[in-house]
């Protein structure tokens, strides 16, 4: 449908934060005083506009909800055309709402969190840039424009992780994130190239419309390449190593980018390309496998980290693994992947901002072994954090219960083996989250000298409260009042298979497993006193503390061979290529040095060579004549 009414302002959704970024980053120090507020206003403006568009869209019938707006033809080269055009359908609408609303809350939170930072104007500029790029990513109507947004969020992530760039660890973490993302980006660009070769165009309508005519091999290739891209952006195995290091950035960054939005871009890509994955069974199978591996990887790593942010990062990795896993299940899972994405976005942002509030009160200490007994001193933080905790555990009626249980149900629809694995993952989730709250809010106080925990200012606690309300009620709201399944069905398709166990039985089993995990976690960390120095632990604990050797694998498989190759190439260049070039130059020099001795300066020797030449010519003539 063409854009009309409020939808003619789709471009404004992106333009507002982009304008904010431009003013803040290009305006320089002059904008230092009022810059942050401008940054907040632009995103809030986009949020208001998004809500208006939602209202208008809900008024349309299901077939008319997809709205398109073309600004201009961007690339027109021979047979290839890509427009600067947007598509706002049901899928992008929910993403736009998530990005703008959660983004606004985090912007408001950052006013308090970054109030002492001298570079906070730049921070808001980068945040606005990120919001603009992410909106472009979800609103694009062709893969090329999506790639622009994809790269944009990667850039913003790099800038924000390394925001405190004088810290060497932050700079290294930013570089690592960018490079690993780049590996995934190669997948996306190759996928776009294959699409162009196969379909002649990269716009969604053309690709999805013609997907039925492409061979399964081609679609499998496209699917696997898109999966590679999603792994990079969403920190899935094997490109997961950057997410934990990304916690070097400020906490609002971790909340917005590495919990709620950017890392979900991979899920968006897979769900958007459902037309490809529906027809490429092997690619979809690979998606499920990757998701499953990452669920356990993230959970195990999150269980052993003492840094509260890194533990939450491991949890994010695991939860996104759930989403990817659900997306790989096909039409039975797409809707629930998005559902879980939305609820996770809200409660994980709440958890991260809560962690930031705790850090703020504990003088920016992130070691949970130095927390303890904070529930009486940081009440609002504690209550909101508990809301997020209950949501992520999947305790009814909190939001996470509805989305995660639907995923487990869909897993059982495929096979009970993976269903059981999903339930086990939920159990481990219960374990590590209980460990986290036990070490932070309960138990004895293990604070360092001079630390006086206090509640954060209102500008930080109000977003926490709003997010906690979302963590509590969003699940029910989306499922019952918003009819999320029917809302997304026109875009992604929805199917349902019967399972051996009824849904109620599944819910009960899941709840029991989660509570067992929580009980183990409480017994380990809540009942017993927590030692301040980390005990050595068994082999799994040690492996989990080292990110399940993810960095080691990258080092051995990628980094060291690259360095060796570079060293060999340098040697080859300097000895062989330079040798050849220098050698030919030396040869020419030597040859001319010898040849110039024929220029003796004596006219008689020149005359002799002239006579020699004349004799040769006469001889040639005579020979030709005589033969």
């Amino acid at each position, binding site marked *: 449908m063409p854009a009309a009414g409020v939808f003619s302002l789709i471009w404004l959704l992106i333009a507002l934060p982009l304008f904010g970024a431009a003013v803040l980053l290009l305006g320089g120090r002059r904008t230092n005083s009022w810059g942050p507020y401008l940054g907040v206003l632009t995103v809030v403006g986009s949020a208001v506009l998004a809500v208006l568009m939602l209202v208008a869209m809900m008024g349309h019938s299901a077939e008319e909800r997809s709205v398109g707006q073309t600004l201009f033809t961007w690339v027109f080269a021979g047979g290839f055309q890509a427009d600067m055009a947007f598509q706002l359908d049901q899928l992008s609408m929910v993403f736009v709402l998530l990005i703008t609303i959660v983004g606004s809350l985090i912007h408001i939170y950052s006013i308090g969190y970054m109030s002492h930072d001298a570079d906070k104007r730049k921070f808001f500029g980068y945040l606005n840039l990120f919001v603009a790029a992410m909106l472009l990513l979800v609103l694009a109507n062709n893969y090329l424009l999506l790639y622009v947004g994809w790269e944009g969020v990667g850039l913003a992530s790099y800038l924000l992780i390394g925001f405190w760039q004088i810290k060497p660890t932050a700079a290294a973490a930013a570089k690592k994130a960018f490079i690993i993302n780049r590996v995934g980006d190669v997948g996306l660009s190759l996928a776009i190239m294959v699409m162009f070769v196969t379909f002649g165009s990269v716009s969604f309508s053309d690709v999805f419309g013609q997907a039925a005519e492409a061979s399964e091999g081609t679609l499998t290739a496209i699917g696997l390449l898109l999966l590679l891209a999603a792994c990079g952006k969403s920190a899935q195995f094997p490109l997961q190593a950057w997410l934990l290091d990304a916690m070097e950035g400020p906490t609002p960054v971790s909340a917005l980018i590495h919990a709620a939005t950017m890392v979900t871009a991979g899920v968006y890509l897979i769900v958007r390309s459902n037309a490809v994955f529906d027809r490429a069974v092997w690619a979809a199978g690979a998606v499920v496998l990757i998701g499953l591996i990452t669920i356990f990887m993230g959970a195990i790593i999150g269980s052993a980290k003492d840094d509260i942010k890194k533990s939450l990062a491991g949890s994010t990795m695991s939860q996104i693994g759930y989403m990817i896993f659900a997306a790989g299940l096909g039409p039975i899972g797409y809707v629930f992947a998005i559902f879980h994405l939305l609820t996770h976005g809200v409660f994980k942002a709440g958890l991260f901002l809560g962690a930031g509030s705790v850090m703020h009160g504990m003088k920016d200490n992130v070691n949970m072994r130095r927390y303890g007994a904070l529930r009486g001193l940081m009440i609002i933080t504690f209550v909101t954090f508990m809301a997020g905790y209950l949501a992520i555990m999947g305790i009814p009626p909190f939001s996470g219960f509805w989305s995660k249980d639907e995923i487990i149900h869909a897993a059982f629809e495929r096979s009970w083996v993976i269903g059981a694995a999903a339930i086990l993952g939920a159990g481990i989730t219960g374990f590590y989250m209980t460990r986290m709250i036990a070490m932070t809010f309960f138990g004895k106080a293990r604070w360092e000298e001079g630390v006086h925990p206090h509640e954060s200012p209102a500008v930080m606690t109000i977003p926490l409260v709003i997010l906690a309300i979302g963590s509590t009620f969003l699940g029910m709201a989306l499922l019952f009042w918003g009819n999320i399944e029917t809302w997304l069905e026109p875009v992604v398709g929805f199917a349902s298979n019967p399972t051996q166990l009824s849904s109620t039985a599944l819910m009960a089993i899941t709840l029991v497993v989660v509570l067992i995990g929580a009980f183990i976690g409480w017994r380990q960390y809540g009942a017993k006193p927590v030692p301040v120095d980390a005990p050595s632990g068994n082999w799994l604990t040690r492996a989990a503390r080292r990110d399940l050797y993810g960095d080691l694998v990258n080092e051995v498989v990628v980094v060291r061979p690259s360095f060796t190759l570079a060293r060999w190439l340098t040697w080859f260049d300097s000895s062989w290529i330079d040798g050849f070039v220098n050698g030919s130059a030396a040869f020419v020099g030597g040859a001319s040095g010898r040849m110039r001795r024929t220029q003796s300066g004596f006219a*008689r*020797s020149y005359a*002799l060579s002239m*006579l020699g030449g004349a004799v040769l010519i*006469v001889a040639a003539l*005579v020979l030709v004549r005589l033969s």
Partner: protein
Amino acid sequence: MTEVNLGEEIVFWFSGGLAVLGALGLILSRKAVHSALWVALTMINLAVLYVANSAPFLGMVQVVVYTGAVMMLFLFVLMVVGVDSSDSLIETLKGQRLVAIVLAVGLAILLVAGIGAGLTDVVPVGLDEANGVDGGNVQGIARLLFTDYLVAFEVTSALLITAALGAMVLAHRERWLPRASQEELSKARFTGTGHPGNLPSSGTYARHNAVDTPALLPDGSPSAQSIPGPLVARGDVRPVDHHDVEQIESLDGGSK
């Protein structure tokens, strides 16, 4: 002459042999003047050969221009450069002599073989008819010069003028100092060393008054200044015969 008759053959062998002899003399003489004379011999013989080949005009031009003008020009320049100038026999460039002789001999063999092989059965047409067209060899050449080869003729005349100008420019001596005036010349003459006046001329006697005969000073001794320096240096001064002087004095009546 369409064929070569016996007389021409004799002329050929004689003049040709002398020409080769002259060429050998040119390249083998030590003194430059000798080489010049040998060359003149070669050229005159070549003029004879031209005439034998029914080219009388060219033969005369060869004698007048080549032997007369060009070789005389060579001799003049030899006088400027130094008639005594002679080459040492040692060759300074390594291998030059050997390679030069080999190459030149090779060239001669090639030319002889090539041309000889090509001209074995040729009967000369002879120039009787060509010379008879315009009534003579000179007229025939003149016709060709002023019709077929007119442009070449004009160009060579321009060349000659250019050559003359070039020689004048090259041989010109630039005056670095201002020309000395008459006054300065006189001053230099009388204030400097040397004899200010004229030198005495050589003695004039009844039997001898040549350049190498000295004049007598008042005391009867010969004046060395009256004889040109080179002759004195060579010792070519003729001694004065005092017997003749006394005889004249007695004839004179003893007036001293």
